[in-house]
């Protein structure tokens, strides 16, 4: 009777109230709630991991923004000193070895503040420096290391410029 009344009044086919309630009950069952909960848990785990990664990225970005220019300036000075000593290679081998040591240590500090391509470039140059023994017959190798240091400084300068636009 109820069913026929609704059909007559509205001119449309509406489910009778008991059927509606049962279908809602069926949809909002504990099983369904549990499934939705699980989906949200997984989604929140993904978001947490993403936030964690972004925070790490921001932290290193911030560290580089604050200390980067000073470290690059120091590296610039060290490379200039190295070039100056290369004016008289045979007479300045001790100073060259010292300067390379200082440069490697500075690059190590910088490496901890970098990620991705720049980090790999710094790591590679540090490897070159560590492998380079400053002795009379290695002048060519020392000069190659100097050029590699210049390249990494230029790369870092460009990266620093990009950072200024990023955030």
């Amino acid at each position, binding site marked *: 009777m109820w069913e026929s009344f609704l059909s007559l009044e509205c001119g449309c086919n509406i489910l009778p109230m008991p059927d509606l309630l049962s279908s809602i009950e069926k949809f909002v069952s504990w099983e369904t709630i549990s499934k939705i909960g699980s989906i949200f848990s997984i989604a929140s785990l993904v978001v947490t991991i993403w936030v964690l990664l972004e925070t790490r990225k921001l932290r290193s970005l911030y560290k580089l923004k604050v200390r980067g220019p000073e470290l690059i300036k120091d590296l610039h000075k060290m490379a200039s000193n190295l070039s100056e000593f290369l*004016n008289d290679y045979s007479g300045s081998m001790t100073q060259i070895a010292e300067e390379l040591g200082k440069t490697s240590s500075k690059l190590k500090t910088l490496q901890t503040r970098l990620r991705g391509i720049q980090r790999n470039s710094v790591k590679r140059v540090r490897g070159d420096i560590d492998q380079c023994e400053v002795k009379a017959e290695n002048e060519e190798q020392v000069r190659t290391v100097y*050029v590699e240091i210049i390249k990494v400084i*230029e790369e870092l300068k460009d990266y620093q410029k990009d950072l200024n636009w990023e955030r």
Partner: protein
Amino acid sequence: MASEKKNKWIDAVGKLLQLTQQGSLKWKPIKPPAYLNSAPNDSRVDVVYDTDYKDRVLRLYEKRYKIQKPNPVFATISVFADEREYPYWSSKTVLELLDENELSPWAFPNSQVLDDLLDAVRYQVSGVKDFLNEILAEAS
């Protein structure tokens, strides 16, 4: 890609630096040509160093230029903006490759290695090494 291209130039200037420091490439100081000092109130060049390398002329110099106060509309907001007094002078090292008529100079991209090359050229031209050796020989 841009970085690779820049690295090629650094390699090239690094080679010039090596040749200069080893004495294979000789530079000579000359009076700057007129085109470099055409606007002396805005930019100046005191001395240029020329060399011949593989039948081409290379010209190296330090260019000092005046930095004018930027237009406030386009100026970047900076915490240091008020500390800087305008105009002020800045400088950059320029390495040019000239054609056979020593015209239409083409400038190498700017990088730190150019500054080091200029220092090496000044060291070579002033004869510091020989002077130092003479002093040390006299002292001993």
